[in-house]
């Protein structure tokens, strides 16, 4: 397998478009740049930002999606984070939550740790992995028209689970750091959902 050149999407613009006009969407972010990208698009009580627990973002989305089947849930994570939890795609496939979307921002690199090439960058196609696991709807997006289509899809609850790969440029972005207080973030989302804080 040879190196895969990234798509032309810029991550901040793509994530901002993806979440534009969000209504009742709940968002879980994978550690690293996806956490910063989602925060930069606009903080929201329906966001839970992971700063650790690598490999766990999609599974956290699964637990949340099963708990709130009436709400669309999207996990925004990176190729490196998803690679640590590939087995979780098989778990999601069997549960088949219709309201869950996994969006992978794929720049083919481990951006937080020195920019080493990831398996995705070296040719492992995460979309094909998701298809092989039996995820209902799998798409690879390379332009802003595709992002617009994904924006519409993730806001609905009927046709999931979805797995969407956004091919993004491997680039540095400005810092945009949300709260690292997990207890507070938890209480904020639960309050947003009409639950007791803890």
């Amino acid at each position, binding site marked *: 397998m040879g190196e895969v050149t990234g798509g032309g999407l810029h991550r901040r613009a793509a994530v901002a478009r993806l979440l534009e006009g969000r209504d009742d969407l709940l968002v879980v972010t994978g550690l690293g740049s996806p956490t910063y990208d989602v925060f930069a698009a606009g903080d929201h009580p329906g966001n839970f930002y992971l700063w650790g*627990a690598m490999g766990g973002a999609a599974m956290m989305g699964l637990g949340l999606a099963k708990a709130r089947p009436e709400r669309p849930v999207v996990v925004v994570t990176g190729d490196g984070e998803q690679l640590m939890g590939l087995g979780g795609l098989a778990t999601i496939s069997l549960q088949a939550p219709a309201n869950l979307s996994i969006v992978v921002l794929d720049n083919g690199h481990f951006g937080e740790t020195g920019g080493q090439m990831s398996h995705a960058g070296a040719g492992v196609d995460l979309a094909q992995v998701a298809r092989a696991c039996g995820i209902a709807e799998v798409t690879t997006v390379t332009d802003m028209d595709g992002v617009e289509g994904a924006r519409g899809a993730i806001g609905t609850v009927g046709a999931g689970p979805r797995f969407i790969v956004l091919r993004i440029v491997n680039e540095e972005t400005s810092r945009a750091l949300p709260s690292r207080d997990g207890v507070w973030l*938890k209480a904020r989302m639960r309050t947003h959902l009409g639950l007791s804080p803890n």
Partner: protein
Amino acid sequence: MASAHKIDREEDAGSPWAPIIFDALADAGVAQVSYVPDAGHSRLIRLCHDAQGMDAIVLTTEEEGIAIAAGAWLGGARSALLMQSSGVGNCINMFSLLASGRFPFLTIVTMRGEFHEFNPWQVPMGRATPQALAIMGVIVLRVERLEDLAAIMSSATTMAFESDQAIAVLLSQSLLGAKKWVK
């Protein structure tokens, strides 16, 4: 070849701990039960699959169940994880999610590597299991006798879901009976 052996556990026919644990989970309103299979959990897993209002979620690796439990709690649902002691080792870093978010957590762990263990490969992780849980901030409740189980399960669900604690209930190998291989 594995197919030449029938894996059995002499207590499997009864597994009297299974309905006690199931009742405690149901009474606590646990809606999502994730698991990596173990012979000692097989009857409980069947009960969870068959239960109304309870989803049984088969995992590829145990740490998935920790993130599922945290996500479930975010959305207002209660979740528990069933695993074998070997799986505790797979969970170590993911336990940090529970501490960082002070998420409730309940796992029921069937022990290997202790009483009457015949497989040396089970011993290192089995021996390390209580300490591995403890150093990551999980409270360990150990069950040696069947007559103690209901009270310990009741305590575990209360401490997890009312006091926001991470709780592991260890079912000792002396309770479960040693694993037996039948040719």
